[in-house]
């Protein structure tokens, strides 16, 4: 039984296409008002998982509950409460952006043009609404797809690789827009294979590979779990002097690779103390960077630990 705060719950989902197993015993849950990111390489099963949430695809095994409903039997209601941005947003290209949004509005039972103008303005595409969708760039199409997805004010936004094919500037702006939508209280489930995208945006990360979830949780929690030691990266004019940090309190390890030295600490609070001691001993530091693991590092650690297991 789902509590009211759980918006999406997948339990033991299995789905194959011919010989290919797309999802194998996938379980995950997404809570109301959070941004959950499905992180995994291409072919991990992210798109299949998103398509199952709206009931567009059915599982061979397992159960799915969205807003407490089974999308296969209550598809109409579930879909009317979801907004979807597919990996490759496609439009009726002979028609204008406005025509495309009007069609979407009518499919969601909306009347009038107010919501169209508002959604288009929100994603900065209002100036091009009357141009043919064929003339839109990839970035504009993504913005139009986002406008289409939020048109009916959905409770759950499903975004499948929303920055795929975008230049860095457009990708950044799209991520900012997603952040804005999420901060408005919407629940967002987004898939990506770009670890940097998830960084800073995700309340919850689900690492998925081979159709199953490797780990799931808040990024900080996962980092603590899989990357327990904070590190400090040090460099100096005379690097040989940096070896003395091995004797300092709270230093659990030192990695020297000929370049900057990576110092493992028992607590990130040790950083000022380590730097002060080195300076007192006459070491001329050129770099001192406290470092907490990124999602990217976490991802490879998780994968590595799974492979070795």
């Amino acid at each position, binding site marked *: 039984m789902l509590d009211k705060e759980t918006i999406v719950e997948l339990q033991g989902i299995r789905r194959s296409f011919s010989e290919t197993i797309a999802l194998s015993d996938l379980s995950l849950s997404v809570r109301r008002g959070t941004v959950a990111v499905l992180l995994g390489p291409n072919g991990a099963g992210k798109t299949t998982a998103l398509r199952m949430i709206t009931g567009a695809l059915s599982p061979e095994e397992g159960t799915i509950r969205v807003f407490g409903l089974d999308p296969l039997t209550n*598809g109409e209601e579930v879909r009317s409460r979801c907004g979807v941005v597919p990996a490759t947003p496609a439009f009726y290209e002979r028609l204008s952006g406005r025509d495309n949004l009007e069609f979407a509005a009518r499919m969601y039972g909306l009347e009038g043009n107010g919501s169209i103008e508002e959604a288009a303005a929100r994603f900065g595409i209002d100036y091009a609404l009357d141009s043919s969708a064929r003339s839109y760039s990839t970035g504009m199409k993504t913005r139009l797809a986002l406008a289409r997805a939020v048109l009916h004010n959905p409770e759950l936004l499903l975004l499948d690789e929303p920055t795929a094919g975008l230049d860095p500037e457009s990708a950044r702006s799209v991520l900012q827009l997603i952040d804005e939508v999420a901060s408005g209280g919407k629940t967002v489930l987004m898939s990506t294979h770009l670890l940097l995208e998830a960084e800073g945006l995700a309340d919850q990360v689900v690492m998925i590979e081979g159709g199953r979830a490797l780990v799931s949780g808040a990024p900080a929690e996962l980092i603590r779990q899989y990357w327990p030691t904070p590190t400090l990266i040090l460099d100096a004019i005379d690097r040989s002097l940096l070896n003395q940090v091995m004797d300092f309190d709270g230093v659990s390890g030192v990695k020297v690779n000929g370049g900057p030295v990576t110092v493992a600490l028992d607590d990130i609070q040790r950083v000022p103390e380590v730097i002060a001691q080195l300076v007192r001993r006459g070491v001329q530091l050129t770099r001192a960077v406290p470092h907490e693991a990124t999602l990217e590092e976490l991802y490879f650690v998780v994968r590595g630990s799974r492979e070795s297991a």
Partner: protein
Amino acid sequence: MNFKRMLAITSFNLKQLQKSPDFWIPMLIMGGLFFVVLPAALLFGVTFVQHLQSVKQVGNALGPITQVTGKGLKNKPEAYGLAVHLFAPLAVVVPMTICSAIGANTLVGERERGTGEFLAHCPATEREIYLGKLIASLLPGYAATVVGFGLYSLVVNLIVGPSVGGWFFPTADWWILMFWLIPPFLALALSMILRVSGRVKTAAAAQQSSGLVTLPLILLTYGQSSGTVLGGAGSAIALGAIAWLLAIIGLWRGARAVTRPRLLGIDNV
């Protein structure tokens, strides 16, 4: 069943057609040729160039046919026979071609463009999508036929009317053909075409396959439409009723052509 959504799909598909002059201009030309230009040229030739040997041959050919069906051309010119009996199949070929061209592309087009993903995730049911697209495929062909029928009537009455004592077309048999026989045959053909369109991978394959599917239907309807005009109204009404029944069954079962996985481009469901 949400009729608003279904009609939204229909009107949106019609809007797409309206914005596709590369599609409707050739169809317009075809309709113009079949309903206006060719009949006008032939009827004009038969009516005003009576001495031609070929005209006499037409009259000779029509004589036995109309006698067999009990509708002899007593005291009527050859042009009357041509107008009433020989052009009836045109009323079938034009709408069937238009409907087939639109219908074949309607579902596979969503897959090819990738727009099927939006439909797969939207609240519309599969039946609403199917019926919306079916009506959008049926309407242009049938509308072309009705407009063509009006123009054809005008041509026939203007050219042949004076020689038979005034306006005489459409005859009762043509009314039955246009409003009782043609619609179910179109619907039956479309139910098959949409099934094909839902299953194939490319629009080109859909066009090829729908041609194969509709060819027997065109021949059947062609024969039937000639027979209706040559035969009795009673048999036409009975055959129309059977065609309607088959069309309803075909349309009902044809709804299975639309599935969400197919809209997403996934065949293995």
